[in-house]
């Protein structure tokens, strides 16, 4: 056991602790233990090991006796908070085309901006991308900050970081959102460090605290086993990344117009030490897994690599993407880029069809927020059925081809 650090704000209230051990069982970090104590009601007292404690608060929630108290530390704001106004969305583009996650963020961004009574802006960086600004306005942006340069055609960490850092310093937004893509995650982390501000990854809910006018950022942790609401009270901008399909795309309103604010920066800020020497596209199906509305996934129950043929056929008819469980990838039946789950991709399509997937917690972590889950498995006890909207206990080699045939008829393919 170690002493309580000076800025640590969690403690056990000896008088309330009953020694029930619920907190010991709950703590994800094993930071709480029970000791014999004469002062405690029932002779046992919970003790927090502050070296292990991350102040996640899970124990506070679990305690039925209000014996654990966690207070938010009062730290003086690091910046003049009132100077920061407006909600921004990073308008990620690839090959000059704005990515769909941006329109999802603009939908949510509009709500947040309206709740704060402020404006919504998009940050568009690239080469000859001005034409994309129009749709950003249609989707709810009031302003587009546009930075164009031949060297900015493809995303690179350093110039993109430098530009956004400069824009933030000049125009001071209070909120800045990014898609939780391979680009957004790399970029936002670098920007957070440069600006000394907070960043919350993979938010599944964003709201405004009406009283304090700050952003409430909710995200899953421990593979979705717990949810945490995170604040960035004293630093600006409040930054978050959000995965594909978490929010609904903003509707198109072609009557909407906005203002383009063009900025340019000196060459030293546009320089990149890394260089992209080749780009290879290799996803075997044409649909990007994280963006797909429908995913058909195969697991160990397929029994063989050839089993993915029936999966692919159904995916093709439905216009969806092909996913896989870790065991199917480990068996080398399909490349890793198709893996769904904790060590693969996190997806939330409208329909997820799990074929021959038992549903290990690490797989569920990657797909359990899908709108409709269909499970097809021989084993009626498979955990996948506990999350499935529709469960079919049966042979996937009978069910899946029949389903493919059925949808060929329905969709007249």
């Amino acid at each position: 056991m170690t002493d309580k650090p000076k800025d640590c704000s969690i403690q056990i209230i000896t008088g309330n602790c009953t020694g029930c051990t619920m907190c010991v069982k709950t703590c994800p970090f094993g930071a709480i233990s029970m000791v014999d104590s004469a002062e405690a009601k029932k002779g046992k007292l919970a003790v927090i090991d502050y070296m292990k404690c991350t102040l996640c608060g899970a124990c506070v929630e679990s305690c039925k006796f209000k014996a654990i108290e966690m207070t938010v530390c009062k730290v003086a704001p690091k910046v003049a908070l009132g100077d920061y106004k407006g909600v921004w969305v990073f308008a990620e583009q690839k090959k000059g085309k704005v990515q769909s996650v941006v329109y999802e963020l603009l939908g949510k961004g509009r709500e947040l901006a309206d709740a704060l009574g402020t404006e919504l802006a998009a940050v568009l960086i690239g080469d000859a991308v001005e034409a994309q600004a129009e749709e950003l306005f249609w989707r709810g942006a009031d302003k587009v900050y546009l930075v164009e340069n031949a060297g900015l055609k493809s995303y690179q960490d350093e110039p993109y970081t430098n530009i956004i850092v400069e824009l933030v310093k000049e125009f001071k937004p209070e909120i800045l959102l990014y898609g939780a893509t391979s680009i957004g995650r790399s970029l936002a982390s670098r920007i957070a460090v440069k600006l000394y501000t907070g960043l919350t990854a993979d938010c599944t809910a964003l709201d405004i605290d009406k009283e304090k006018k700050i952003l409430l950022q909710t995200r899953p942790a421990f593979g979705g086993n717990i949810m945490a609401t995170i604040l960035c009270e004293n630093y600006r901008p409040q930054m978050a990344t959000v995965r594909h399909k978490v929010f609904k795309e903003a509707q198109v309103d072609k009557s909407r117009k906005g203002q383009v604010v063009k900025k340019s920066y000196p060459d030293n800020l546009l320089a990149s030490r890394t260089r992209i020497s080749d780009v290879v596209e290799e996803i075997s199906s044409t649909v990007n897994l994280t963006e797909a509305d429908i995913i058909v996934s195969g697991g160990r129950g397929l029994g063989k690599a050839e089993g993915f043929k029936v999966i692919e056929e159904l995916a093709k008819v439905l216009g969806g993407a092909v996913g896989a469980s870790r065991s199917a990838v480990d068996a080398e039946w399909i490349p890793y880029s198709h893996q769904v789950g904790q060590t693969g991709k996190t997806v939330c399509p409208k329909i997820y069809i799990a074929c021959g997937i038992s549903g290990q917690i690490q797989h569920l972590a990657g797909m359990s927020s899908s709108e409709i889950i269909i499970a097809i498995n021989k084993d009626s006890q498979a955990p996948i059925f506990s999350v499935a909207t529709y469960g079919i206990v049966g042979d996937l080699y009978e069910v899946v081809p029949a389903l493919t045939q059925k949808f060929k008829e329905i969709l007249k393919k």
Partner: protein
Amino acid sequence: MNIIVCIKQVPDTQDIRINPETNTLMREGVQSIVNPFDMYAIEEALRIKERLGAASTKVTVLSMGPSQAEEALREAVSMGADEMVLMSDRAFAGSDTWATSYTLAKGIQKLGKFDLIICGKQAIDGDTAQVGPGIAATLDIPQVTYVKKTEDIKEGLAKFERMTEEGYEVIETPLPCLITVVKEINIPRLPSLKGKIKAKQSKATVLGAKDLEVDPDRLGLQGSPTAVKKIFTPPKRTGGQVLQGEVPDIVNKLADSIKDVVISVSKT
């Protein structure tokens, strides 16, 4: 060449179960493991060492955490890492990703000259993927995230394949740089007997806040821009309908239930 691998000790989330009565996490029997993505980072460092020659390359594993995290470092040494450094101080407690990146970067600076820093793509307890790029930004060095292959590496220069949503990019970078690696990059080796003996005999160098040139206001909870306001268990997703009967009947029932969604999706 000096390679630093940053690792984290995490609870094995595959062991985590939810208590159905209280709807809370059950920690009993949950093992601490080396974050799985960090295993690929350790393995990649060892492969680069083998490629460049063992005599000229040193692999140091670094972790920030409680004293128990030394177990995780030992595992890396048993696989073949040369040295281990544990950053442990109660001043680091409650760090968010900003403060963690800052602290690890300061620890790395303390270790002296380095050429390559390798991190796993993310840790499985927090899943943020922010600390790797955060370290790179603090040290002001280039980064290549989601690396799936080391194509080439030599003094001062390297070439990596970076996984993207569509495939991959080949990225050339000067050294020093930081990379984060994905599962596809390699298959981590098992510890050797010799390694295990070495790990048993080794001791981690321990660094605390006093050993670092840091701004104490930027450490731990106090230095963290974000704070957890509340933790809650998500509403449990419950199983729905189990469709029964002959295959054609089941398929018809299912098709009727999801047909509208499928048709609406196919139109967009």
